Protein backbone atom coordinates (compact mmCIF):
# COMPACT_ATOMS: atom_id res chain seq x y z
CA UNK A 1 0.00 0.00 0.00
CA UNK A 2 1.38 3.35 -1.09
CA UNK A 3 -0.55 5.57 1.29
CA UNK A 4 -0.50 5.83 5.06
CA UNK A 5 -2.91 3.29 6.50
CA UNK A 6 -4.33 5.84 8.91
CA UNK A 7 -5.26 8.14 6.02
CA UNK A 8 -6.75 5.30 4.01
CA UNK A 9 -8.71 4.08 7.00
CA UNK A 10 -9.99 7.59 7.76
CA UNK A 11 -11.16 8.09 4.18
CA UNK A 12 -12.76 4.65 4.00
CA UNK A 13 -14.67 5.46 7.18
CA UNK A 14 -15.79 8.71 5.63
CA UNK A 15 -16.98 6.90 2.48
CA UNK A 16 -19.02 4.64 4.73
CA UNK A 17 -20.35 7.63 6.63
CA UNK A 18 -21.44 9.26 3.36
CA UNK A 19 -23.33 6.10 2.46
CA UNK A 20 -25.07 6.17 5.85
CA UNK A 21 -25.92 9.84 5.39
CA UNK A 22 -27.46 9.07 2.01
CA UNK A 23 -29.62 6.31 3.50
CA UNK A 24 -30.73 8.53 6.39
CA UNK A 25 -31.46 11.37 3.99
CA UNK A 26 -33.66 9.12 1.88
CA UNK A 27 -35.53 7.46 4.70
CA UNK A 28 -38.35 5.04 4.02
CA UNK A 29 -40.75 5.07 1.08
CA UNK A 30 -39.12 7.77 -1.04
CA UNK A 31 -37.04 6.99 -4.10
CA UNK A 32 -33.37 7.93 -3.94
CA UNK A 33 -30.24 7.42 -6.00
CA UNK A 34 -28.45 4.83 -3.90
CA UNK A 35 -26.71 2.94 -6.70
CA UNK A 36 -24.71 5.74 -8.29
CA UNK A 37 -24.04 7.42 -4.95
CA UNK A 38 -22.53 4.32 -3.43
CA UNK A 39 -20.33 3.57 -6.45
CA UNK A 40 -18.76 7.05 -6.18
CA UNK A 41 -18.45 7.24 -2.39
CA UNK A 42 -14.70 6.51 -2.13
CA UNK A 43 -13.81 9.06 -4.81
CA UNK A 44 -15.99 11.78 -3.30
CA UNK A 45 -14.56 11.08 0.16
CA UNK A 46 -11.01 11.27 -1.19
CA UNK A 47 -11.68 14.56 -2.97
CA UNK A 48 -13.52 16.39 -0.19
CA UNK A 49 -11.54 15.04 2.76
CA UNK A 50 -8.04 14.82 1.37
CA UNK A 51 -7.29 16.01 -2.12
CA UNK A 52 -9.14 19.24 -2.75
CA UNK A 53 -8.12 22.69 -1.56
CA UNK A 54 -11.14 24.67 -0.41
CA UNK A 55 -12.57 26.59 2.51
CA UNK A 56 -16.05 25.44 3.51
CA UNK A 57 -16.61 28.74 5.33
CA UNK A 58 -15.55 30.73 2.26
CA UNK A 59 -16.92 28.64 -0.60
CA UNK A 60 -15.98 31.20 -3.27
CA UNK A 61 -12.34 31.37 -2.13
CA UNK A 62 -10.07 32.38 -5.01
CA UNK A 63 -7.81 29.62 -6.27
CA UNK A 64 -9.89 26.81 -4.78
CA UNK A 65 -10.19 23.41 -6.39
CA UNK A 66 -13.63 22.62 -7.74
CA UNK A 67 -15.77 19.51 -7.76
CA UNK A 68 -18.50 19.27 -10.40
CA UNK A 69 -21.09 16.56 -10.17
CA UNK A 70 -21.93 16.08 -13.83
CA UNK A 71 -24.06 13.08 -12.86
CA UNK A 72 -26.21 15.49 -10.89
CA UNK A 73 -28.81 12.90 -9.90
CA UNK A 74 -26.53 11.66 -7.11
CA UNK A 75 -26.68 15.09 -5.48
CA UNK A 76 -27.42 13.35 -2.17
CA UNK A 77 -23.86 12.01 -2.11
CA UNK A 78 -22.39 15.46 -2.72
CA UNK A 79 -24.69 16.99 -0.09
CA UNK A 80 -23.58 14.38 2.44
CA UNK A 81 -19.92 15.20 1.74
CA UNK A 82 -20.52 18.95 1.86
CA UNK A 83 -22.41 18.70 5.15
CA UNK A 84 -19.67 16.56 6.67
CA UNK A 85 -17.12 19.10 5.40
CA UNK A 86 -19.00 21.98 7.00
CA UNK A 87 -20.37 23.92 4.02
CA UNK A 88 -23.73 23.94 5.79
CA UNK A 89 -25.22 22.37 8.95
CA UNK A 90 -25.85 18.66 8.76
CA UNK A 91 -29.49 19.30 9.71
CA UNK A 92 -30.02 20.60 6.17
CA UNK A 93 -29.77 17.01 4.98
CA UNK A 94 -33.09 16.30 6.71
CA UNK A 95 -34.78 18.90 4.50
CA UNK A 96 -33.37 17.83 1.14
CA UNK A 97 -35.95 18.35 -1.63
CA UNK A 98 -38.43 20.03 0.72
CA UNK A 99 -40.26 23.07 -0.62
CA UNK A 100 -37.96 26.04 -0.08
CA UNK A 101 -34.99 23.88 0.91
CA UNK A 102 -31.35 24.77 0.35
CA UNK A 103 -30.77 21.28 -1.02
CA UNK A 104 -32.57 20.73 -4.32
CA UNK A 105 -33.12 17.48 -6.16
CA UNK A 106 -30.18 18.41 -8.37
CA UNK A 107 -27.25 20.72 -7.57
CA UNK A 108 -28.12 24.43 -7.65
CA UNK A 109 -25.39 27.07 -7.51
CA UNK A 110 -27.64 29.81 -6.20
CA UNK A 111 -29.30 27.86 -3.41
CA UNK A 112 -26.47 25.75 -2.00
CA UNK A 113 -23.18 27.31 -0.87
CA UNK A 114 -20.25 25.41 -2.33
CA UNK A 115 -22.07 23.86 -5.26
CA UNK A 116 -19.99 24.82 -8.29
CA UNK A 117 -22.29 23.91 -11.18
CA UNK A 118 -25.95 23.43 -11.90
CA UNK A 119 -26.15 19.93 -13.28
CA UNK A 120 -28.81 17.35 -13.82
CA UNK A 121 -29.42 17.65 -17.52
CA UNK A 122 -26.80 15.03 -18.24
CA UNK A 123 -23.68 15.51 -20.30
CA UNK A 124 -22.93 19.14 -19.46
CA UNK A 125 -20.56 18.98 -16.50
CA UNK A 126 -17.38 18.30 -18.42
CA UNK A 127 -17.98 21.37 -20.59
CA UNK A 128 -18.59 23.55 -17.55
CA UNK A 129 -15.43 22.14 -15.98
CA UNK A 130 -13.49 22.92 -19.15
CA UNK A 131 -14.71 26.50 -18.96
CA UNK A 132 -13.48 26.70 -15.36
CA UNK A 133 -10.15 25.13 -16.30
CA UNK A 134 -9.71 27.77 -19.01
CA UNK A 135 -10.89 30.51 -16.67
CA UNK A 136 -8.45 29.53 -13.94
CA UNK A 137 -5.67 29.34 -16.52
CA UNK A 138 -6.46 32.96 -17.45
CA UNK A 139 -6.60 33.85 -13.76
CA UNK A 140 -3.13 32.38 -13.34
CA UNK A 141 -4.05 30.01 -10.50
CA UNK A 142 -3.02 26.38 -10.15
CA UNK A 143 -6.48 25.26 -9.10
CA UNK A 144 -7.88 21.98 -10.32
CA UNK A 145 -11.30 21.08 -11.62
CA UNK A 146 -12.66 17.59 -10.95
CA UNK A 147 -15.69 16.47 -12.95
CA UNK A 148 -17.49 13.28 -11.94
CA UNK A 149 -19.44 11.65 -14.77
CA UNK A 150 -21.59 8.58 -14.94
CA UNK A 151 -20.83 5.84 -17.44
CA UNK A 152 -24.42 5.98 -18.66
CA UNK A 153 -24.24 9.76 -18.92
CA UNK A 154 -21.41 9.70 -21.41
CA UNK A 155 -23.81 8.55 -24.10
CA UNK A 156 -24.60 12.29 -24.31
CA UNK A 157 -22.81 13.75 -27.33
CA UNK A 158 -21.78 16.92 -25.53
CA UNK A 159 -19.37 14.91 -23.37
CA UNK A 160 -17.38 14.12 -26.47
CA UNK A 161 -17.50 17.71 -27.70
CA UNK A 162 -15.93 18.67 -24.38
CA UNK A 163 -13.48 15.77 -24.50
CA UNK A 164 -12.23 16.88 -27.91
CA UNK A 165 -12.02 20.52 -26.88
CA UNK A 166 -10.19 19.86 -23.59
CA UNK A 167 -7.50 17.89 -25.40
CA UNK A 168 -7.21 20.76 -27.89
CA UNK A 169 -6.77 23.30 -25.13
CA UNK A 170 -4.40 20.97 -23.21
CA UNK A 171 -6.14 21.69 -19.92
CA UNK A 172 -3.95 19.73 -17.52
CA UNK A 173 -5.97 21.27 -14.67
CA UNK A 174 -9.10 19.41 -15.77
CA UNK A 175 -9.58 15.94 -14.34
CA UNK A 176 -12.49 13.89 -15.60
CA UNK A 177 -13.67 10.92 -13.57
CA UNK A 178 -15.96 8.28 -15.03
CA UNK A 179 -17.82 6.12 -12.53
CA UNK A 180 -17.95 2.90 -14.52
CA UNK A 181 -20.53 1.01 -12.47
CA UNK A 182 -21.92 -0.61 -15.62
CA UNK A 183 -25.56 0.26 -14.95
CA UNK A 184 -27.88 3.04 -16.07
CA UNK A 185 -31.44 3.77 -14.99
CA UNK A 186 -33.17 0.98 -16.85
CA UNK A 187 -30.59 -1.77 -16.92
CA UNK A 188 -27.03 -2.75 -17.61
CA UNK A 189 -25.12 -0.47 -19.94
CA UNK A 190 -24.06 -3.38 -22.09
CA UNK A 191 -27.71 -4.16 -22.77
CA UNK A 192 -28.89 -0.57 -23.12
CA UNK A 193 -26.25 1.46 -24.94
CA UNK A 194 -22.97 -0.36 -24.88
CA UNK A 195 -20.26 2.24 -24.54
CA UNK A 196 -17.53 -0.18 -25.56
CA UNK A 197 -13.88 0.29 -24.66
CA UNK A 198 -13.97 3.47 -22.60
CA UNK A 199 -10.24 3.61 -21.95
CA UNK A 200 -9.49 3.43 -25.67
CA UNK A 201 -12.16 6.04 -26.46
CA UNK A 202 -10.85 8.62 -24.00
CA UNK A 203 -7.26 7.96 -25.03
CA UNK A 204 -8.24 8.42 -28.67
CA UNK A 205 -9.75 11.78 -27.74
CA UNK A 206 -6.35 12.84 -26.40
CA UNK A 207 -6.72 12.22 -22.67
CA UNK A 208 -4.29 10.53 -20.33
CA UNK A 209 -6.30 7.62 -19.00
CA UNK A 210 -5.73 6.14 -15.55
CA UNK A 211 -7.76 3.02 -14.81
CA UNK A 212 -8.42 2.04 -11.22
CA UNK A 213 -10.63 0.08 -8.87
CA UNK A 214 -12.83 2.91 -7.62
CA UNK A 215 -13.38 1.21 -4.27
CA UNK A 216 -9.69 0.81 -3.47
CA UNK A 217 -8.78 4.00 -1.60
CA UNK A 218 -5.09 3.49 -2.24
CA UNK A 219 -5.70 3.43 -5.99
CA UNK A 220 -8.10 6.39 -5.81
CA UNK A 221 -5.51 8.53 -4.03
CA UNK A 222 -2.77 7.40 -6.36
CA UNK A 223 -4.80 8.28 -9.45
CA UNK A 224 -5.59 11.75 -8.09
CA UNK A 225 -1.92 12.37 -7.33
CA UNK A 226 -0.82 11.07 -10.73
CA UNK A 227 -3.25 13.46 -12.37
CA UNK A 228 -1.27 16.36 -10.87
CA UNK A 229 1.71 15.33 -12.95
CA UNK A 230 0.00 15.01 -16.31
CA UNK A 231 1.66 17.13 -18.98
CA UNK A 232 0.00 18.81 -21.96
CA UNK A 233 -3.29 16.91 -21.80
CA UNK A 234 -6.28 16.45 -19.51
CA UNK A 235 -6.57 13.38 -17.30
CA UNK A 236 -9.41 10.87 -17.22
CA UNK A 237 -9.70 8.58 -14.23
CA UNK A 238 -11.71 5.59 -15.34
CA UNK A 239 -12.82 3.97 -12.13
CA UNK A 240 -14.35 0.55 -12.24
CA UNK A 241 -16.97 0.37 -9.54
CA UNK A 242 -19.93 -1.58 -8.27
CA UNK A 243 -23.33 0.07 -8.49
CA UNK A 244 -24.78 0.21 -4.97
CA UNK A 245 -21.42 -0.81 -3.44
CA UNK A 246 -21.61 -1.60 0.26
CA UNK A 247 -25.27 -2.53 0.41
CA UNK A 248 -25.82 -6.20 -0.43
CA UNK A 249 -29.29 -5.93 -1.93
CA UNK A 250 -28.44 -2.81 -3.97
CA UNK A 251 -25.24 -4.06 -5.56
CA UNK A 252 -25.04 -4.64 -9.30
CA UNK A 253 -28.66 -3.88 -10.04
CA UNK A 254 -30.51 -1.09 -11.77
CA UNK A 255 -33.32 -1.47 -9.23
CA UNK A 256 -31.53 0.90 -6.85
CA UNK A 257 -30.44 3.40 -9.47
CA UNK A 258 -33.35 5.34 -8.00
CA UNK A 259 -34.87 2.92 -5.52
CA UNK A 260 -37.17 2.95 -2.52
CA UNK A 261 -36.36 1.52 0.90
CA UNK A 262 -38.94 -0.24 3.03
CA UNK A 263 -38.85 -0.27 6.86
CA UNK A 264 -37.01 -3.59 6.65
CA UNK A 265 -34.47 -2.68 3.97
CA UNK A 266 -33.84 0.68 5.64
CA UNK A 267 -32.97 -1.06 8.90
CA UNK A 268 -30.85 -3.60 7.06
CA UNK A 269 -28.99 -0.83 5.20
CA UNK A 270 -28.05 0.97 8.42
CA UNK A 271 -26.95 -2.35 9.90
CA UNK A 272 -24.76 -3.22 6.92
CA UNK A 273 -23.23 0.25 6.93
CA UNK A 274 -22.66 0.37 10.68
Amino acid at each position, binding site marked *: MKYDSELVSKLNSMANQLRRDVIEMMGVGVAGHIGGSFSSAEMVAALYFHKMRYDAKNPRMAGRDRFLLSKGHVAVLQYAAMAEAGFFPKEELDHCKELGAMLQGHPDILKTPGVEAGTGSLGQGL*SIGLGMALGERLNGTDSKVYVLMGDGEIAEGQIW*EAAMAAANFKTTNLIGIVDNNAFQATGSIKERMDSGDLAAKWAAFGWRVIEIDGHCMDQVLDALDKADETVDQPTLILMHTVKGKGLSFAENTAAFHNGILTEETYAQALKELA
Partner: protein
Amino acid sequence: MNFNSQRNAYGETLVELGKENKDIVALEADLGKSTMSIKFQQAYPERYFEMGIAEQNMASVAAGLACCGKIPFISSFAVFASGRAFDQIRQTISIGKLNVKICGSSSGLSDFGDGATHQDVEDLAIMRAIPNMTVLCPMDGNEAANAVKAMAEHQGPCYLRVNRASYDSITPEDKPFVIGQPIVMREGTDVVVFACGIMVLKALEAAEALKDEISVKVVNVSTLKPLNDEMIISLAKGCKGVVTAEEHNVLGGLGGAVAEALRRQCMPIEFIGVKDKFGCSAHNYDDLLNAYGLTAHSIVNAVRSIVG
Protein backbone atom coordinates in the same frame (compact mmCIF):
# COMPACT_ATOMS: atom_id res chain seq x y z
CA MET B 1 -17.88 54.82 -34.45
CA ASN B 2 -20.69 54.91 -37.03
CA PHE B 3 -21.71 51.42 -38.10
CA ASN B 4 -23.41 50.25 -41.25
CA SER B 5 -24.09 46.75 -39.95
CA GLN B 6 -25.05 45.17 -36.67
CA ARG B 7 -22.53 42.37 -36.93
CA ASN B 8 -19.64 44.74 -37.54
CA ALA B 9 -20.87 46.69 -34.56
CA TYR B 10 -20.80 43.50 -32.48
CA GLY B 11 -17.22 42.60 -33.40
CA GLU B 12 -15.79 46.10 -33.18
CA THR B 13 -17.51 46.92 -29.91
CA LEU B 14 -16.26 43.72 -28.30
CA VAL B 15 -12.74 44.74 -29.27
CA GLU B 16 -13.28 48.22 -27.83
CA LEU B 17 -14.67 46.82 -24.55
CA GLY B 18 -11.96 44.17 -24.33
CA LYS B 19 -9.28 46.82 -24.32
CA GLU B 20 -10.36 48.19 -20.94
CA ASN B 21 -12.02 45.12 -19.45
CA LYS B 22 -9.68 42.14 -19.37
CA ASP B 23 -12.44 39.89 -18.05
CA ILE B 24 -14.22 39.97 -21.39
CA VAL B 25 -13.63 36.79 -23.36
CA ALA B 26 -15.18 35.62 -26.63
CA LEU B 27 -16.13 32.15 -27.80
CA GLU B 28 -17.08 31.10 -31.28
CA ALA B 29 -18.28 27.98 -33.06
CA ASP B 30 -16.53 28.43 -36.40
CA LEU B 31 -18.70 31.31 -37.61
CA GLY B 32 -16.45 34.13 -36.46
CA LYS B 33 -16.10 35.52 -39.97
CA SER B 34 -19.87 35.99 -40.13
CA THR B 35 -20.60 37.00 -36.55
CA MET B 36 -17.45 39.21 -36.66
CA SER B 37 -16.19 37.85 -33.34
CA ILE B 38 -13.04 37.14 -35.34
CA LYS B 39 -12.11 40.79 -34.77
CA PHE B 40 -11.77 39.96 -31.09
CA GLN B 41 -9.50 37.03 -31.93
CA GLN B 42 -7.26 39.32 -33.96
CA ALA B 43 -7.04 41.79 -31.07
CA TYR B 44 -6.81 39.44 -28.09
CA PRO B 45 -6.00 35.88 -29.19
CA GLU B 46 -5.39 34.73 -25.61
CA ARG B 47 -8.96 35.66 -24.64
CA TYR B 48 -10.62 34.11 -27.67
CA PHE B 49 -11.72 30.48 -27.68
CA GLU B 50 -12.50 28.81 -30.97
CA MET B 51 -14.72 25.96 -29.85
CA GLY B 52 -15.16 24.30 -33.22
CA ILE B 53 -18.56 23.37 -34.56
CA ALA B 54 -19.98 22.52 -31.15
CA GLU B 55 -22.45 25.11 -29.89
CA GLN B 56 -23.62 23.08 -26.90
CA ASN B 57 -20.13 22.71 -25.52
CA MET B 58 -19.49 26.39 -26.23
CA ALA B 59 -22.47 27.48 -24.13
CA SER B 60 -21.51 25.31 -21.16
CA VAL B 61 -17.83 26.29 -21.38
CA ALA B 62 -18.99 29.91 -21.24
CA ALA B 63 -20.89 29.04 -18.05
CA GLY B 64 -17.66 27.70 -16.52
CA LEU B 65 -15.73 30.81 -17.55
CA ALA B 66 -18.42 33.01 -15.99
CA CYS B 67 -17.98 31.07 -12.73
CA CYS B 68 -14.34 32.21 -12.79
CA GLY B 69 -15.25 35.90 -13.03
CA LYS B 70 -15.03 36.19 -16.81
CA ILE B 71 -17.63 37.89 -18.99
CA PRO B 72 -17.99 35.45 -21.86
CA PHE B 73 -19.62 36.52 -25.14
CA ILE B 74 -20.62 33.54 -27.25
CA SER B 75 -21.77 33.92 -30.82
CA SER B 76 -23.24 31.84 -33.57
CA PHE B 77 -26.11 32.13 -36.00
CA ALA B 78 -29.26 32.91 -34.03
CA VAL B 79 -30.86 29.64 -35.06
CA PHE B 80 -27.99 27.63 -33.54
CA ALA B 81 -27.32 29.88 -30.57
CA SER B 82 -30.93 29.70 -29.42
CA GLY B 83 -31.83 26.27 -30.78
CA ARG B 84 -28.86 23.95 -30.70
CA ALA B 85 -27.66 25.26 -27.35
CA PHE B 86 -31.07 25.81 -25.77
CA ASP B 87 -30.74 23.23 -23.03
CA GLN B 88 -27.27 24.43 -22.04
CA ILE B 89 -28.48 28.03 -21.92
CA ARG B 90 -31.47 27.01 -19.85
CA GLN B 91 -29.92 24.50 -17.46
CA THR B 92 -26.65 26.02 -16.50
CA ILE B 93 -26.50 29.62 -17.63
CA SER B 94 -30.02 30.77 -16.81
CA ILE B 95 -30.92 28.74 -13.72
CA GLY B 96 -27.63 29.90 -12.20
CA LYS B 97 -28.03 33.51 -13.48
CA LEU B 98 -24.52 33.26 -14.88
CA ASN B 99 -23.02 36.28 -16.57
CA VAL B 100 -22.95 34.88 -20.10
CA LYS B 101 -23.75 37.00 -23.16
CA ILE B 102 -25.24 35.27 -26.17
CA CYS B 103 -25.10 36.82 -29.62
CA GLY B 104 -27.60 35.33 -32.07
CA SER B 105 -26.25 36.54 -35.40
CA SER B 106 -27.59 36.34 -38.98
CA SER B 107 -31.00 36.42 -37.33
CA GLY B 108 -34.46 36.43 -38.87
CA LEU B 109 -34.41 36.04 -42.64
CA SER B 110 -31.20 38.04 -43.04
CA ASP B 111 -29.16 35.00 -44.06
CA PHE B 112 -31.36 35.05 -47.16
CA GLY B 113 -29.54 32.50 -49.33
CA ASP B 114 -29.20 29.69 -46.83
CA GLY B 115 -32.87 28.91 -46.44
CA ALA B 116 -35.01 27.54 -43.63
CA THR B 117 -32.24 25.69 -41.78
CA HIS B 118 -30.22 28.85 -41.19
CA GLN B 119 -32.95 31.48 -40.97
CA ASP B 120 -34.48 31.87 -37.60
CA VAL B 121 -38.03 32.84 -36.79
CA GLU B 122 -38.28 31.65 -33.20
CA ASP B 123 -35.26 32.82 -31.17
CA LEU B 124 -37.09 35.69 -29.48
CA ALA B 125 -39.87 33.37 -28.35
CA ILE B 126 -37.40 30.79 -27.08
CA MET B 127 -35.21 33.27 -25.22
CA ARG B 128 -38.15 35.23 -23.84
CA ALA B 129 -39.56 32.06 -22.29
CA ILE B 130 -36.41 31.38 -20.24
CA PRO B 131 -36.55 32.85 -16.72
CA ASN B 132 -33.65 35.22 -15.82
CA MET B 133 -32.89 35.96 -19.49
CA THR B 134 -32.67 39.51 -20.87
CA VAL B 135 -33.54 39.76 -24.57
CA LEU B 136 -32.34 42.59 -26.82
CA CYS B 137 -33.09 43.24 -30.49
CA PRO B 138 -31.43 46.44 -31.79
CA MET B 139 -32.61 48.20 -34.94
CA ASP B 140 -29.28 49.14 -36.53
CA GLY B 141 -25.52 49.03 -36.17
CA ASN B 142 -25.16 51.96 -33.82
CA GLU B 143 -27.88 50.69 -31.52
CA ALA B 144 -26.29 47.22 -31.61
CA ALA B 145 -22.92 48.70 -30.59
CA ASN B 146 -24.50 50.45 -27.64
CA ALA B 147 -26.46 47.32 -26.75
CA VAL B 148 -23.21 45.33 -26.58
CA LYS B 149 -21.86 47.91 -24.14
CA ALA B 150 -25.04 47.73 -22.06
CA MET B 151 -24.99 43.95 -21.90
CA ALA B 152 -21.36 43.93 -20.80
CA GLU B 153 -22.37 46.16 -17.88
CA HIS B 154 -25.50 44.15 -17.11
CA GLN B 155 -25.07 41.35 -14.57
CA GLY B 156 -26.65 38.09 -15.74
CA PRO B 157 -27.55 36.18 -18.86
CA CYS B 158 -28.41 38.26 -21.90
CA TYR B 159 -29.35 37.46 -25.49
CA LEU B 160 -28.60 39.88 -28.33
CA ARG B 161 -30.26 39.44 -31.70
CA VAL B 162 -28.06 40.63 -34.54
CA ASN B 163 -28.97 41.12 -38.19
CA ARG B 164 -26.62 40.17 -41.03
CA ALA B 165 -27.50 42.93 -43.52
CA SER B 166 -25.57 46.14 -44.21
CA TYR B 167 -27.48 49.43 -44.00
CA ASP B 168 -26.88 52.87 -42.55
CA SER B 169 -27.65 53.54 -38.90
CA ILE B 170 -30.10 56.20 -37.82
CA THR B 171 -29.42 55.71 -34.11
CA PRO B 172 -27.01 58.44 -32.93
CA GLU B 173 -23.57 56.97 -32.18
CA ASP B 174 -23.51 58.32 -28.66
CA LYS B 175 -27.03 57.35 -27.59
CA PRO B 176 -26.62 55.03 -24.59
CA PHE B 177 -28.63 51.82 -24.72
CA VAL B 178 -30.87 51.59 -21.68
CA ILE B 179 -32.05 48.01 -21.11
CA GLY B 180 -35.83 47.97 -20.73
CA GLN B 181 -36.43 51.38 -22.30
CA PRO B 182 -38.59 51.57 -25.44
CA ILE B 183 -37.64 54.49 -27.70
CA VAL B 184 -40.20 56.73 -29.40
CA MET B 185 -38.88 57.20 -32.94
CA ARG B 186 -41.80 59.26 -34.25
CA GLU B 187 -44.71 60.85 -32.45
CA GLY B 188 -48.27 60.15 -33.55
CA THR B 189 -51.76 59.99 -32.10
CA ASP B 190 -53.99 57.60 -34.10
CA VAL B 191 -52.10 54.29 -34.13
CA VAL B 192 -48.90 53.15 -32.44
CA VAL B 193 -46.52 50.74 -34.16
CA PHE B 194 -44.24 48.82 -31.81
CA ALA B 195 -41.36 47.41 -33.83
CA CYS B 196 -37.94 45.86 -33.34
CA GLY B 197 -34.88 45.21 -35.48
CA ILE B 198 -35.05 46.26 -39.12
CA MET B 199 -38.84 46.48 -38.91
CA VAL B 200 -38.42 49.79 -37.06
CA LEU B 201 -37.18 51.22 -40.37
CA LYS B 202 -40.17 49.75 -42.20
CA ALA B 203 -42.48 51.23 -39.58
CA LEU B 204 -40.94 54.68 -40.02
CA GLU B 205 -41.39 54.33 -43.76
CA ALA B 206 -45.03 53.36 -43.26
CA ALA B 207 -45.64 56.29 -40.89
CA GLU B 208 -44.18 58.68 -43.45
CA ALA B 209 -46.32 57.21 -46.23
CA LEU B 210 -49.44 57.65 -44.10
CA LYS B 211 -48.61 61.10 -42.74
CA ASP B 212 -51.38 62.98 -44.59
CA GLU B 213 -53.95 60.37 -43.71
CA ILE B 214 -53.26 58.83 -40.27
CA SER B 215 -51.00 59.99 -37.45
CA VAL B 216 -48.72 57.04 -36.62
CA LYS B 217 -46.46 56.79 -33.60
CA VAL B 218 -43.42 54.51 -34.02
CA VAL B 219 -41.74 52.92 -31.02
CA ASN B 220 -38.51 50.92 -31.17
CA VAL B 221 -38.86 48.11 -28.63
CA SER B 222 -35.25 47.00 -28.63
CA THR B 223 -35.59 45.33 -25.22
CA LEU B 224 -38.13 42.52 -25.49
CA LYS B 225 -37.40 41.34 -21.98
CA PRO B 226 -37.78 42.76 -19.45
CA LEU B 227 -40.54 44.58 -21.28
CA ASN B 228 -41.52 47.87 -19.73
CA ASP B 229 -45.26 47.10 -19.49
CA GLU B 230 -46.17 50.46 -18.01
CA MET B 231 -44.46 52.36 -20.79
CA ILE B 232 -46.02 50.15 -23.46
CA ILE B 233 -49.45 50.85 -21.93
CA SER B 234 -48.88 54.58 -21.66
CA LEU B 235 -47.54 54.78 -25.23
CA ALA B 236 -50.61 52.96 -26.53
CA LYS B 237 -53.12 54.95 -24.44
CA GLY B 238 -55.33 57.23 -26.49
CA CYS B 239 -54.54 55.47 -29.75
CA LYS B 240 -57.21 53.61 -31.71
CA GLY B 241 -55.06 50.54 -31.88
CA VAL B 242 -51.66 48.92 -32.05
CA VAL B 243 -49.54 47.29 -34.73
CA THR B 244 -46.47 45.20 -33.92
CA ALA B 245 -43.77 44.55 -36.49
CA GLU B 246 -40.94 42.03 -36.20
CA GLU B 247 -38.74 39.83 -38.37
CA HIS B 248 -39.81 36.78 -36.39
CA ASN B 249 -42.73 34.44 -36.04
CA VAL B 250 -45.89 36.29 -35.06
CA LEU B 251 -46.16 33.78 -32.20
CA GLY B 252 -44.21 34.42 -29.04
CA GLY B 253 -42.02 37.33 -30.09
CA LEU B 254 -42.61 41.08 -29.96
CA GLY B 255 -46.28 40.72 -30.90
CA GLY B 256 -46.84 38.31 -28.06
CA ALA B 257 -44.90 40.45 -25.61
CA VAL B 258 -46.85 43.62 -26.47
CA ALA B 259 -50.17 41.76 -26.36
CA GLU B 260 -49.26 40.46 -22.90
CA ALA B 261 -48.44 43.99 -21.76
CA LEU B 262 -51.72 45.32 -23.13
CA ARG B 263 -53.85 42.44 -21.79
CA ARG B 264 -56.11 44.77 -19.78
CA GLN B 265 -56.40 47.46 -22.45
CA CYS B 266 -59.30 47.14 -24.78
CA MET B 267 -57.84 47.93 -28.18
CA PRO B 268 -57.23 46.13 -31.46
CA ILE B 269 -53.75 44.75 -32.20
CA GLU B 270 -52.42 43.66 -35.57
CA PHE B 271 -49.28 41.53 -35.86
CA ILE B 272 -46.84 41.98 -38.73
CA GLY B 273 -44.25 39.21 -38.82
CA VAL B 274 -43.58 35.79 -40.23
CA LYS B 275 -46.91 33.97 -40.25
CA ASP B 276 -45.89 30.81 -38.39
CA LYS B 277 -43.81 29.32 -41.16
CA PHE B 278 -40.17 28.68 -41.90
CA GLY B 279 -37.99 30.80 -44.16
CA CYS B 280 -36.66 29.79 -47.57
CA SER B 281 -33.82 30.71 -49.90
CA ALA B 282 -33.83 33.83 -52.03
CA HIS B 283 -31.27 35.68 -54.15
CA ASN B 284 -31.56 38.79 -52.04
CA TYR B 285 -32.85 39.92 -48.67
CA ASP B 286 -35.49 42.36 -49.95
CA ASP B 287 -37.13 39.71 -52.14
CA LEU B 288 -37.44 37.50 -49.09
CA LEU B 289 -38.80 40.26 -46.86
CA ASN B 290 -41.36 41.13 -49.55
CA ALA B 291 -42.38 37.49 -49.97
CA TYR B 292 -43.02 37.20 -46.22
CA GLY B 293 -44.84 40.51 -45.97
CA LEU B 294 -42.19 42.14 -43.81
CA THR B 295 -42.66 45.49 -45.53
CA ALA B 296 -43.74 49.05 -44.94
CA HIS B 297 -46.70 48.26 -47.19
CA SER B 298 -47.91 45.53 -44.80
CA ILE B 299 -47.66 47.95 -41.90
CA VAL B 300 -49.59 50.61 -43.83
CA ASN B 301 -52.38 48.12 -44.47
CA ALA B 302 -52.42 47.00 -40.85
CA VAL B 303 -52.65 50.61 -39.64
CA ARG B 304 -55.45 51.35 -42.07
CA SER B 305 -57.36 48.25 -40.99
CA ILE B 306 -57.36 49.55 -37.43
CA VAL B 307 -58.48 53.07 -38.25
CA GLY B 308 -61.13 51.61 -40.54
